[in-house]
C-alpha cells in the first residue's frame, strides 16, 4: 500500500506559502519599475528582471543549497521560531536549512522576477488617456498606482495562476531543498516532500519495489492535471485581456 497524501499536502503547502510572498514582492517592484524609475534606470531594471526571470532554476537550487538556506535559517527561520513560538506554524526548531519553509522561500525568490514580468506587461498596457485622467483629478502617484493595480486585477489573477503552476511543477528546487521526509506537520520548519521531489527521489528505486511505478505515474498524472487546469485558466483570463504572456 502506498499513499500520496504526504506529497500532495507538501505541494499544497509549498505553493500556498510561496505565492503570497511572490505577490508581496513583485507588485511593488512593478510599481517602482514603471512609476518611479525613469529613462535608462527603468530600462536597466526591466532587463535585469527579464534576465532573472529566465535564469535556469537549477542555479537557484544550487545557490539555495550552497549558502542561502543557511542564511535563511539564521536570519529568518530562527528569529521567527523564537518570537512567534506560540503559533503552530513556527512552533518547531529549524534543525537544518533543508525544510519546506526554505524550499518555499527559494521558490518564491526564483518566481518573483517571472511574476513581475507578467504583471508589468499588463500594467504597461493601460491606456495613457486613462492614466492622464487619473492624474487630472489631482491624485498622488501612489494613488494612481493603486488605481492602476486594481484595474489589472484579472491580469494579476492570471499571473498568479501561471506562477502557481510554475511553483507546483518546479522540480530541482524542492528536490534539493525540501528535505524529502514523509512527515505531515503543521510546522513549516520540518522537512517534507512534494510530488515532483517524490518522483525524482524514488524513480531510481522503481525497479526494486513492484508497485512504485504506478504510484509515481499516478502522481505525475495528478501534477499534469493540476498544471493543465491552471495553465488553461490563465490563458483564458489572458485572452480576455489580450495580454501576451512572455515566457
Amino acid at each position, binding site marked *: 500500500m502506498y499513499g500520496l497524501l504526504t506529497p500532495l499536502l507538501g505541494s499544497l503547502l509549498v505553493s500556498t506559502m510561496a505565492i503570497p510572498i511572490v505577490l508581496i514582492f513583485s507588485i511593488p517592484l512593478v510599481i517602482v519599475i514603471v512609476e518611479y524609475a525613469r529613462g535608462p534606470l527603468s530600462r536597466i531594471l526591466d532587463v535585469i528582471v527579464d534576465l532573472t526571470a529566465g535564469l535556469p532554476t537549477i542555479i537557484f537550487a*544550487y545557490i539555495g543549497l*550552497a549558502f542561502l538556506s543557511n542564511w535563511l535559517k539564521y536570519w529568518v527561520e530562527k528569529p521567527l521560531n523564537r518570537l512567534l513560538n506560540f503559533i503552530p506554524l513556527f512552533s518547531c526548531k529549524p534543525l537544518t536549512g533543508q525544510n519546506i519553509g526554505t524550499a518555499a522561500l527559494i521558490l518564491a525568490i526564483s518566481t518573483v522576477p517571472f511574476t513581475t514580468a507578467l504583471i508589468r506587461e499588463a500594467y504597461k498596457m493601460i491606456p495613457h488617456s486613462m492614466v492622464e485622467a487619473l492624474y487630472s483629478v489631482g491624485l498622488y502617484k501612489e494613488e494612481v498606482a493603486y488605481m492602476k493595480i486594481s484595474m489589472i486585477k484579472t491580469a494579476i489573477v492570471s499571473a498568479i495562476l501561471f506562477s502557481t503552476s510554475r511553483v507546483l511543477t518546479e522540480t530541482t528546487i524542492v528536490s534539493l531543498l525540501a528535505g524529502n521526509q514523509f512527515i505531515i506537520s503543521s510546522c513549516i520548519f520540518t522537512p517534507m516532500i512534494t510530488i515532483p521531489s517524490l518522483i*525524482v527521489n524514488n524513480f531510481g528505486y522503481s525497479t526494486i519495489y513492484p508497485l512504485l511505478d504506478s504510484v509515481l505515474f499516478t502522481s505525475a498524472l495528478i501534477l499534469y492535471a493540476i498544471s493543465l487546469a491552471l495553465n488553461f485558466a490563465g490563458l483564458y483570463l489572458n485572452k480576455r485581456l489580450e495580454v501576451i504572456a512572455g515566457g
Partner: protein
Amino acid sequence: MVSLRFIKVLAIRLTVATLSIISLAVILLIHVSILVNGLRIALLNGFNLLTGTPPLPTESKPLGGVGPSLVGSLLTSGLAILISTPVSIILGFFLVEHRGSKFVGFVRAAFQSLYGLPTITISLIVYILLVIPMRTQSLLAGSISLLIVALPMELTYFENVFSNIPLTYKEAGYSIGLDRLGLLTRVVLGISKSGLASALTLTLARVMGETAPVLFTIGNALTSYPTSLFQPSSTITTLIFMLASSPFQVQFDFAWGAVLTLYLIYLFLFTASKLVRGVEL
C-alpha cells in the same frame, strides 16, 4: 496640518520602496554570488574548466572541468532546436493563415496542453516510450525530451511573430501570384527574420537551462565525452544537480564552476536575443 490622505500615500510609498529594495537586493545577490564564487573556481582551473572532467571525491581541491557535459548540453539542445524550428515555422504559419477554423483551434489547444506539461512528467514519458525500448539512456532520448519542451514554446513565439506581420504585405504577395509556400519563403520569412531569430535564441536559452526533462533520460554519464547519439551522456544542468547532491565537499564546491558556465551561456543567448530584436522593422 497633515491630512490622513497624505499619511496613507506616505505609507504606500514607504512600503513599496522597502519591499522593492529587498527584492532587487535578492536578485542582485543571486547574480553577484554566481559571478564571485564561479570566478573563484574558474580562476583556479583556467581553461581546463571548459575541457576537463569533473573532480573525483578523492581530490583535495575542486580541480576539473565541465567538458563532457558542455558538449552534451550543446548537442542535446542543438538537436532539439534543429528539429523544432522548421516544424514551428510551418505549423505557426499554418495556424496564423487558417485562423478561426475549428481544426486550428484544436491544434493550438493540443500544443498549449503540451506547454502545461510539467517538465518532470516529460522525463517519465520519454523514459517509458524511448529509453525502455532502446534499453539504454541516451543523448537522443535527452534531446527528444528537450524537443517536447522546445516545441510548444517556440510555436507560441513564432505564432506571435507571424501574426504581427501587416496583412497588406501578405496581400501583395498573393496578388503577384504566389502560393502559400511561396508566400512563406519569399515574403513572410524575410519580414519576420529578426523576430524569429530572437524567439529561437530565447527558446534555446530556456531549453539549455532545463534539468528535470533530461534527468531520467540522458543517463548522467559525467566523465566521458559523448561519442554517439545512442550512448548515455549528461548536460550541464544535470551535472550541477548531481554535484549538488554529492556528499563530498570538493564536488559540491566545484559545482560553482558549472553554474558559472551555464550562467554565461544563458547570458550570451539572452543578450543575443535582445540585440537581434533591436534591428526589427
